[in-house]
């Protein structure tokens, strides 16, 4: 992919295509471009899977996939840009005098057109892919909405409070049963907060009075972090708590232990 794009930067109409491929600058730029593209494809994917936290829901899985796919979409662009940049950087003119003039190429219609079409297509790919993911996640959450467990999340300076209305439990830690869809109804009593159960891959602002919602289905047992992602005053940094995805039995036991009635 990168090979073709690098070649497309050929600005001298007089050159024959066959000779063009043999030119050392074309070959070198192409090699640089391919290497850069390869690095981005390999490392770009690794970067996110390595650093992003444990995936504990399908939403988080989708996010991680998106990050990797977007890196792939961007990789050839990096290849073209950096291939040419690296080549010209290494073949610079040294010395304190001005370099000799280069060819007086003003523009190259087909190249501009091709470049515009290719970048538009890449952008379009990103748009279509993003819209599809957005759509599928909202379809999934709509499907789950009926039998979802409702948790009322309230942000206040600087504490998260979780209320399970059907179970009669209120807690400062977010306990969730595994593989059971959950809907968060998020509110604030003072300033804006942003409810962020990190490993579940959802985030939504907590506004005063106006309720916002977010849905997810945790699918992995374990602890996760709940943070505030919107500057909310003095102790914003400390407005965090933990949560845990439990087996259904453990969850029911927890509910009972908290004085609620199990589902």
């Amino acid at each position, binding site marked *: 992919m990168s090979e073709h794009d690098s070649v497309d930067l050929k600005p001298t109409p007089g050159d024959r295509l066959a000779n063009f491929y043999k030119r050392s600058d074309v070959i070198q730029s192409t090699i640089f471009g391919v290497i850069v593209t390869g690095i981005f494809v390999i490392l770009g994917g690794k970067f996110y899977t390595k650093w992003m936290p444990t995936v504990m829901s399908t939403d988080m899985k989708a996010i991680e996939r998106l990050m990797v796919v977007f890196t792939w979409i961007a990789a050839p662009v990096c290849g073209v840009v950096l291939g040419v940049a690296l080549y010209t950087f290494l073949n610079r003119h040294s010395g304190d005098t001005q370099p000799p003039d280069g060819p007086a190429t003003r523009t190259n219609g087909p190249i501009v057109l091709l470049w515009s079409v290719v970048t538009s297509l890449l952008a379009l790919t990103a748009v279509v892919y993003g819209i599809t993911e957005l759509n599928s996640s909202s379809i999934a959450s709509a499907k789950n909405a009926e039998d979802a467990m409702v948790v009322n999340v309230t942000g206040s300076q600087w504490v998260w409070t979780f209320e399970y209305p059907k179970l009669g439990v209120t807690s400062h830690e977010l306990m969730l049963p595994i593989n059971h869809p959950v809907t968060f109804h998020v509110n604030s009593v003072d300033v804006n907060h942003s409810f962020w159960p990190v490993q579940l891959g959802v985030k939504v602002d907590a506004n005063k009075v106006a309720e916002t919602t977010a849905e997810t289905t945790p699918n992995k047992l374990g602890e996760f972090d709940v*943070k505030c992602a919107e500057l909310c005053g003095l102790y914003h940094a400390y407005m965090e708590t933990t949560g845990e995805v439990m087996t259904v039995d453990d969850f029911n036991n927890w509910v009972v232990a908290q004085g609620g009635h199990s589902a």
Partner: protein
Amino acid sequence: MTTLDQHVGTRPIPNPKKSLITKLNAGTGLIVGIIFALLTYRGLSTVLDISVYELNNRVLLATMFMWSIGFLAGIGAFIGPIRWLIGEDLTAEEQLYMAGDGQGIKRYFKYCTDHKVVGIQYLWGVIVLLAVGGAMAMMIRTDLANPGGHFITPSVYNSLVGLHGITMIIALIIVATGPFGNYIMPIMIGAADMAFPRLNALSWWVLFTAIPVLCSAWFLGGIPTGWTAYAPLSVQAGPGMNAFIATIIIFAISTAVSGANITATVITMRAKGMTWNRVPIFVVGATLSVAMAIPAFPTFMLAMIMTAMDRSFLTGFFDANVGGTGWLYAHLFWIMGHPEVYVILLPGVAILIEIVPVFVRKPLFSYTSAIVGFAGIVGLSFLVWAHHMYMSGWMPMLNGPFMVTTEMISVPTGLIFLVILGTLWNGKPWLKVPMLGVYAFLWNMLVGGITGLYLSDVPADMYLHGSMYVTAHFHYTLMGAALTGAVAGLSYWYPKMTGHMLHERASYISFWLVQIGFQVLYLGMFIAGAEGQPRRVVDYAEQFATSNKISTMGAYTIGIGFIVLLWAVIHSWRHGKIAPMNPWGAKTLEWTVPYPVPLVNFDTPPVVTSDPYGYGRSAK
């Protein structure tokens, strides 16, 4: 178009009837401003009970605005309008005096209408703002070097974050259009001065009055809201918030004035023969940037007026109990906020595009693409604001459309890349310091653009929004691209602005320190963001320790790099190598005038017969 002033050759001793103008300067401005402020504060605090929250806010706001008005009165900003009002227009001699003719270094401390003086004033204003904002960044990174560090308290930290943010935003908005837009651009288009020289002086001195106001925030309890100043947090915040509000309102006035001035200059005062397809690309970029700022900033000003009203008069714009909402603030803020990002970016990019052909000795590749790219960015930037509000819940069903418009911006941005790459291709670049900036831009903007792609995507933003990842992303675009462009512009135009070459070795060292430190700093921050560290936190969990430590090391490297640059700028100002008239062999008009640039720039009005990119072997 411009005719020469008769007085240039003779330089009469300016003595315009001993009028008031000759007696006023920044010193009298300071005195009158402080008197106004003190009287206002004393007067109002006897009438109003300042222990009451909203009354205290009223007193402080009034004091700040009166300082600004007093300073402007004291420096003579209102002489022109009042003389117009009473029908005694300023005489030619008085105008010549106001242009600072023959007044040496004193004119830099006066209400001077010469665009070159205003450009230098802006340059030093920017340097001071960047130094202050940079020092704050160093303190932030020092605090974040270790988890659980108690270098500073949460309250100080939050103030630092807000002050660093707004200081840097203001600095970056003017970093290119202030010094170079005022000093270089009129010469570049062959004009004798700006369209409205007095407004030019006004825009600088109004901005100047905002700086002490902004600094006063520190003594009033700081700006604990971040530079976004989201309501209702800003309504809840302490008295320091008044300083933020006053600063923004004053700054918005300055921006509108200078935006109108620069735009009118470029539209009406180009040299004979400089048709629209012959305008240097920096002029196009800077003009589009300030023209975009004209409609953008008033909405921010409106949001600030509403915040001030909520705080001082207990209105209910952002108070959910009486029908207000923080969403309204977010809308008004981001309707300004996203164009503002490109207000910062465009001039920096335009400087770099201006530089490439000079150092590659080739014509600019596809001038049209550059224009289309700029215009596309400007057009789309007004349609993308709500991508900052994906998670706010104001209307989730519109997230899709805003995602589309946002991702479409990558197409015009791609054209900018094409222009630079096409110019580089087949050329042998002369890697002087300005040209190095072009390479730094290519990499930084690539990273900034691609990470922007993730953030524009709703599901991915669900994870990244409000995390350190966002912070790293916008530093790549604003600092890595726009500031890099402005620094390249400084070393490029420094010879014309000071008559000396910028110390070459020092600026090389500075370049590499800054750029390498930059990559280290924000690589660490991307990792922290991907790991899930929220932004604007004074403290973080143990798991983020490594990435934050990396970031802090990078930050210190940048700090050292900029200190080296600052030394170079100060040292070379007087002691640098004397610059030839056209050290880079460029073809734009500013290199045809000598240093010091004459008062009216050109001895004979230039006539332009081609665009300034006629480099190349087969060129005529």
